């Protein structure tokens, strides 16, 4: 299963002579070189792509989880008219494939003058099926927190906001971590939306940048493999460190991890 990874990573250190002239089954770079990385970084501003993706994959999940846990607290603990109706209305969004809203979103962003701006890259992705999934997930989690914890604080005169901030959120760290990991992965890998709204190299995230590199260098596999390795490594590192949260995302709901 990991052979294609091993193969492409090792290839990224091979000289182009070995790649085109040598045996493709030979896994060991001989001699090993960093030239491909140097070339990849000089053809296009790859460090910008990586930084933009890092920003995208941090801001969107943070915003989404914050908004979602606020809404989820309301759905899990507070009484108000129409609560269940609104909740059902929201759940419907999860059934909705993203491609139906792609064109109107693009038209809207264009009218707002956001094309090629970070606002277009970051704000629309916050509000979609992912947010609704996060609301659903956090609500389930909040329902499992014993009420006694909050009741003491409420009697002491703490407001709902105070309870949310000082009691509910600190008791939800594993759930938040799971959603943060899933969110980071989703945004790091996102392609279609950024590809449509950004064509300025300085604001481009990594996946879009990769496809531009592909068009630029055609089938220079040496450069392409160095670039794909660069784009995969941050995610692999995060995966290694937080593997159990990835698994938890699938196991608790059957939906996470996407």
């Amino acid at each position, binding site marked *: *299963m*990991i052979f*294609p*990874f091993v*193969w492409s990573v090792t290839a990224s250190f091979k000289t182009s002579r070995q*790649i*085109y002239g040598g045996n*493709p*089954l030979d896994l060991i770079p001989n001699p090993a070189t960093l030239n491909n990385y140097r070339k990849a970084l000089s053809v296009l501003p790859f460090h910008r792509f990586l930084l933009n993706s890092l920003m995208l994959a941090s801001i969107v999940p943070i915003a989404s989880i914050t*908004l*979602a846990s*606020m*809404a989820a607290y*309301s759905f899990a603990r*507070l*009484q*108000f*008219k129409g609560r269940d109706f*609104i909740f059902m209305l929201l759940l419907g*969004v999860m*059934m909705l*494939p993203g*491609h*139906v*809203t*792609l*064109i*109107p*979103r*693009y*038209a*809207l962003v*264009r009218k707002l003058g956001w094309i090629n701006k970070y606002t277009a890259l970051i704000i629309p992705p916050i*509000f*979609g099926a992912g947010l609704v999934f996060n609301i659903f997930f956090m609500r389930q989690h909040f329902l499992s927190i014993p009420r006694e914890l909050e009741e003491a604080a409420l009697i002491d005169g703490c*407001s*709902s*906001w105070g309870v*949310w901030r000082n009691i509910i959120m600190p008791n939800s760290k594993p759930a938040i971590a799971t959603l943060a990991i899933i969110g980071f*992965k989703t945004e*790091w*890998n996102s*392609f*279609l939306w950024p590809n*449509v709204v950004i064509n300025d190299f300085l604001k481009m995230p990594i*996946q879009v940048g*990769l*496809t531009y590199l592909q068009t630029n260098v055609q*089938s220079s596999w040496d450069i*392409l493999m160095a670039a794909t390795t660069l*784009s*995969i490594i941050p*995610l*692999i590192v995060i*995966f290694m460190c937080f*593997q159990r949260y990835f*698994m938890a995302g*699938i196991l608790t709901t*059957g939906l996470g*991890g996407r």
Partner: protein
Amino acid sequence: MMRSLDRSQRQVRQTLTAWSFILPSLIGLGIFVYGSLVYSLYISFTSWDLLTPAKWVGFANYARVFRDETFIQCLYNTVYFVVAIVPLGIVFAMAMAMALNKQLPGIGFFRAAYYMPSITSTIAIGMVWLWIFNPDQGVLNALLKLIGVSNPPRWLESRVWAKPALSIMRLWQVSGYYMIMYLSGLQNIPNELYEAAEIDGATGWQKTKYVTVPLLSNTTLFATIMLIIEVFNLFEAVYVMTEGRPGGSTNTILYYIYAQAFQRYRMGYASAMAWVLFVILFVITLIQFAARRRKEEIGF
């Protein structure tokens, strides 16, 4: 009197607090999801190239969808991919889950290795496989030649082999995700059932057939629906690896929608196709749930 007033005041306050918690999400979703849906429906009834004002055309876009040979071809390709990917994906995922459902040292590594492709971006993976499938410089044909295939296929350049090539790449990429789902399904099967089957003299294969597979049927239903939806949404692999070529043999509905909207600026027509795709996916999900219910009624 005083008390009831106090209570209603408290109620009002709680309602206000509750709304202040959900309002930011609701406003955003209202604009970018619910508003967009209505807008999308409107666009699908117009002819619009983004530059000149939209022109109302009624059902013309929808009528065109079903007469459009490219759309029909995409639909055919998608059915091909469903047949090629879904059953094999389910079998691989289930078999791997059974193989890895053991407490052995180092088993975590194998699970992670199998799962890793599904968290990696399709764009990056697509480039790696583009090279693997390269008929002259790729590793796959080098392997085939090594085992004596003198004239290996030209994979993505060939009308016959491009679809199988894409299917192989997607199978490799997604089945690990479903394996994890099956692993959790397996861990929910009570051990007593296997013990009872053993007392009745069941062999290993019989246990798999009569205990494991039926008890995983919920996971299988769910995984099947998700896989089908995933195949219908095939886009990034096509974008990176083939752009629908050769001769449209790997074109998919989503890629066609994208090309019509963002390369040809036919927003109305692309929106109409997006709604048709949505209805297809919705109907598939309903059929599968209905089939499931029938099966339960018969007492399977």
